[in-house]
């Protein structure tokens, strides 16, 4: 499809580095690339136009011109601006101070409202709202009520429904009364999909809104929507005065520029992202990640988050201390290895790094998970003393460890040797010296290096 914008920008601006200066025409060339990338990502053309104008101004600022790597600088600015445009942080649902919180869902046909209702119900239940109810106000689409009843049941939400003969406005009002009586925490109102040009149905949506006075109105937008997203959002903003957006189908490969357009035009934040077939695939929206996605820069943030989930801050600090005092043991190496592996298969982690997808040699990189298993098995077959002080490991111990881990003596030898070299190198690093390149080369042969937190 589309080359990664960051790569293309690097290429566009690469010869600038040799000249050491960035001219206005260089910036113009970069802006062209960015404009194309954004259009390709379905960002509305008007938004693109004003966006690149702002961008150009910033890029002509001194910090870019003087920098060593203008390409990187430009990317950084684009990323910041995109993130800012999509609402920064801090947008939350509004909750009622007493009585049920009422959330009205609206959107075009097929944008994923009914599914989003159930997912939102599940999300709210998991974040502490015990009693979430749904109201089935889509009386038009065949079997929409049945669908809501089924998915509602799956997420443990009560569903208020009156079949398809009643007026949606009446159903919504009735459901709200019931929710109050039954002291529900949240009532989510599903509505029929409607085209934003359909006056009658948009009028109906406005009437539902007036009648039940929701605390939040959410517009569900399909991430694959193209240029039309802006018109849709404007019409819905007028009729339903929505407060926030749910982006659906973000698990596809659409760049989701619609998200940017909707936010830019209506000023309403994107609150949630729906990312899969399963009812649990629903989470808060992260503008910074969306920015990276629109730019095709890989999902570094998800990677960092994954790492943070798995890596204990305190453990990392302890490790740093140990490294400084050269007390790093095989036990620590085992812990480190396990933490990295908890993040998933190594090949998957590589895939999340920007630019990696494009690198052919890595695409087929065969990361030997079996070797990691072997290292783990060997360390596990050692006594605590041996792990702390590998110098103890001599002839008979080697044999025992090899037998215990189902490996050969030479594997044990190899590991001990590599660990030794690693420790030597770390001593150099900790004492502020650069490691000897030869040592580095020796290390790349086998055992995985522990992940060291840089600060």
């Amino acid at each position, binding site marked *: *499809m589309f080359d990664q914008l960051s790569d293309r920008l690097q290429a566009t601006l690469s010869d600038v580095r040799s000249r050491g200066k960035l001219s206005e025409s260089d910036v113009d060339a970069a802006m062209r690339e960015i404009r194309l990338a954004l259009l*390709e*990502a*379905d960002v509305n053309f008007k938004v693109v136009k004003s966006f690149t104008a702002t961008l150009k101004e910033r890029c002509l600022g001194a910090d870019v011109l003087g920098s060593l790597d203008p390409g990187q600088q430009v990317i950084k600015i684009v990323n910041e601006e995109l993130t800012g445009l999509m609402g920064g942080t801090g947008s939350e649902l509004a909750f009622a101070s007493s009585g049920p919180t009422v959330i009205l869902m609206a959107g*075009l*046909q*097929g*944008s*994923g409202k009914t599914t989003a209702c159930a997912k939102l119900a599940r999300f709210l239940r998991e974040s502490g709202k015990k009693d979430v109810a749904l109201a089935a106000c889509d009386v*038009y*689409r*065949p*079997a*929409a009520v*049945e*669908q809501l*009843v*089924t*998915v509602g049941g*799956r997420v443990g939400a009560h569903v208020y429904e009156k079949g398809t003969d009643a007026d949606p406005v009446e159903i919504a009002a009735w459901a709200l009364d019931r929710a109050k009586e039954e002291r529900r925490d949240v009532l989510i109102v599903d509505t029929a999909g409607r*085209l*934003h*040009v359909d006056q009658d149905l948009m009028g109906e949506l406005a009437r539902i809104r007036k009648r039940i006075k929701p605390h939040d109105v959410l517009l569900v937008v*399909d991430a*694959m*929507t*193209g*240029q*039309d*997203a802006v*018109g*849709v959002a404007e019409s819905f903003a007028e009729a339903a005065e929505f407060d926030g957006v749910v982006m659906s*189908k973000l*698990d*596809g*490969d*659409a*760049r989701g*520029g*619609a998200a940017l357009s909707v936010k830019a035009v209506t000023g309403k934040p994107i609150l949630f992202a729906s990312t899969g*077939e399963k009812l649990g695939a629903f989470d808060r929206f992260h503008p910074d990640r969306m920015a990276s996605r629109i730019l095709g820069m890989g999902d570094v943030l998800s990677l960092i988050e994954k790492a943070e989930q798995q890596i204990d801050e305190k453990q990392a600090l302890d490790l740093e201390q140990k490294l400084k005092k050269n007390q790093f043991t095989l036990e620590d190496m085992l812990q480190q290895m396990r933490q990295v592996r908890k993040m998933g298969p190594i090949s998957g982690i590589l895939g999340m790094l920007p630019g990696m997808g494009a690198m052919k040699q890595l695409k087929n990189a065969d990361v030997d998970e079996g070797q990691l298993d072997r290292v783990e098995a060997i360390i596990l077959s050692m006594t605590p003393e041996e792990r702390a002080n590998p110098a103890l490991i001599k002839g008979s111990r080697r044999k025992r460890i090899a037998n215990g881990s189902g490996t050969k003596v030479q594997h044990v030898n190899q590991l001990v040797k590599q660990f030794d070299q690693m420790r030597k190198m770390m001593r150099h690093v900790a004492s502020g010296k650069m490691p000897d390149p030869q040592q580095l080369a020796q290390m790349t042969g086998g055992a995985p290096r522990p992940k060291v937190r840089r600060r």
Partner: protein
Amino acid sequence: MVERLEHEVEAGSVPADGDAVQARLIEILAEVAATARAPIDLSGEPAVLLMVGVNGTGKTTTIGKVAWHLSKEFGLSVVLAAGDTYRAAAAEQLAEWADRAGAELVRSEEGADPGAVAYDAIEAARARGADVVIVDTAGRLHTQSNLMDELAKVRRVIAKQLPGAPHETLLSIDATTGQNGLRQAKVFAEAAAVDGVVLTKLDGTAKGGIVLAIADDLGIPVKLIGTGETLEDLRPFDPTDFANALLSP
């Protein structure tokens, strides 16, 4: 396309005034839109139509409309296969359309094998001498390779049972879809050998320009357009009308 137009204007074959250029542009757009045009193939006995597409693009609704047209306007007997065994109440939705269109419905329980449903429907159609079988499938994002494999399997099951079938595989594309539509068409075409596109939800303000790229790049023509929620709101695709609509403000 723009390049071609520029060439023609420079070469003088198109006069360099606004109206003439626009008229020529519409011609070019219509020409691209008309790439690989072919009627819907109903020659099989029974003819099998397979409906595929991303979630929420209007597959089930389109099937309802097609069934209605075939049975009411052409007097054909139609069997619908509820192959969306994944989404809650999808079969009920199709049942309602079958009822409205006067078609028969073959369904199974939720979570059943969609290939088996298609198989049963074709068996039923043969037994009753029905003219057309339309197989619904669950919406799936083209990025989910396991679901795309499942689709390829449904197609294989059909082909094995009735040589030459499915005679027509239609991909529904939502007119509001942006650049991603091309990707969708490409991947669906690989998995299910798509014969044509149904462009749905054209009654909004979206113009569905992405089908031009689909026709141009992949040679898959638009065959039908959906313009509303009632049974009648289905029309054959007209390239010239489409090109005109694309350029109208």
